């Protein structure tokens, strides 16, 4: 059975919505920092696809004047200009996240978001000189062997 134009657009809308949903799920569920960054990239790709789709006309051609009289109606150029900007924003944020991840792995030794939250909480409490709240869901959390915890955190841990 042949698919007529409106189906093309619903397929693409489903694709963009699927990408946003998969990206959001990845952000909500995954534990590894790199997977979170990839999921953020997916969600941004989905939003970009939706924005380009917003300017699409079924029977229109690309907005490039090719010398000959403009063949038919042209696609709306404004969403394409906006998506150009937002793709490059996405990759800028991604490069920044990778740089931060390298530093975090060097300092905390872990890239698991839940362990990181626990270590961050202990670090802030240690810097402020207070006992980390016992409400952390794994009270006697021992960081994986071989992680070089900043010295002060380790020391207050024993003395508290």
């Amino acid at each position: 059975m042949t698919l007529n134009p409106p189906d093309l657009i619903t397929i693409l809308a489903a694709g963009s919505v699927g990408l946003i949903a998969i990206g959001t799920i990845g952000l909500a569920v995954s534990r590894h920092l790199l997977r979170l960054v990839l999921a953020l990239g997916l969600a941004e790709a989905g939003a970009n696809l939706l924005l380009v789709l917003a300017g699409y006309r079924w029977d229109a051609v690309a907005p490039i004047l090719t010398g000959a009289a403009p063949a038919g109606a042209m696609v709306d150029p404004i969403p394409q200009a906006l998506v150009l900007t937002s793709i490059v924003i996405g990759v800028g944020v991604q490069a920044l996240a990778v740089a931060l991840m390298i530093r975090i792995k060097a300092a905390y030794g872990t890239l698991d978001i839940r362990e990181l939250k626990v270590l961050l909480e202990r670090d802030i409490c240690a810097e402020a000189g207070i006992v980390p709240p016992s409400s952390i869901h794994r009270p006697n959390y021992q960081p994986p062997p071989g992680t070089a915890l900043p010295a002060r955190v380790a020391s207050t841990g024993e003395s508290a």
Partner: protein
Amino acid sequence: MHKLASLLFALGLAFLLMGLAAQLPLGATPMGIGADILQRTPSEIGSANIVTAVVLAYRGIDTLGELTILFAAATTAGMVLSPAGGAAVRKAREDAGLVLRAGSDLLFPLLLMVGFYIVLHGHLTPGGGFQGGVVLAAAFFVSFLARAEKQPSHSCLSLIEAVAGAAFIGIGLAALLGGGAFLQPLLETGSVGALISAGSLPLLYLAVGLKVGAELASLLAHLAE
């Protein structure tokens, strides 16, 4: 149990978003401003690629913001990766394999040419400063990967970056000082489709291409250290 909960959350979210997207008049969205730009570009700006006209002329300050976002991201990544201000100790790198060395000798000039082609034809064919800048950054990065002794001089890259960024704003300010408005297209529009056309747009895209190329080359070099 965890997987099931996330699956249900996924289906619910997809269903909600699909309901939202189904209501959108996609395919027949109102094109008030877009149609107006399609008519006015050939005469007013003279660039064959109308998206370039929107990116650089009608919405020029968006692109300046975009350029600055990439500058901010690259600066912060550089600051995070080498807090000592670029004097990071460079691990001894040995030469890459024969394939990459031979390949990079062949690829470097080609990539450079393609990169500059995309940047300089931004107002005629699809492409422009951002895409060409990425290709230029790839060209420098391939040669950096292949040869161990090839060290990226961060100071020279940041100089190109600063000069190109200042040139972009300078062209905009020239329009402002010349009595027009900021980032008003200067010079005559020439005939649509000719290489020298669309006034100051090619110059702006050249500045964008150089800046993006230098920034991303130094970012990749920082990451690869």
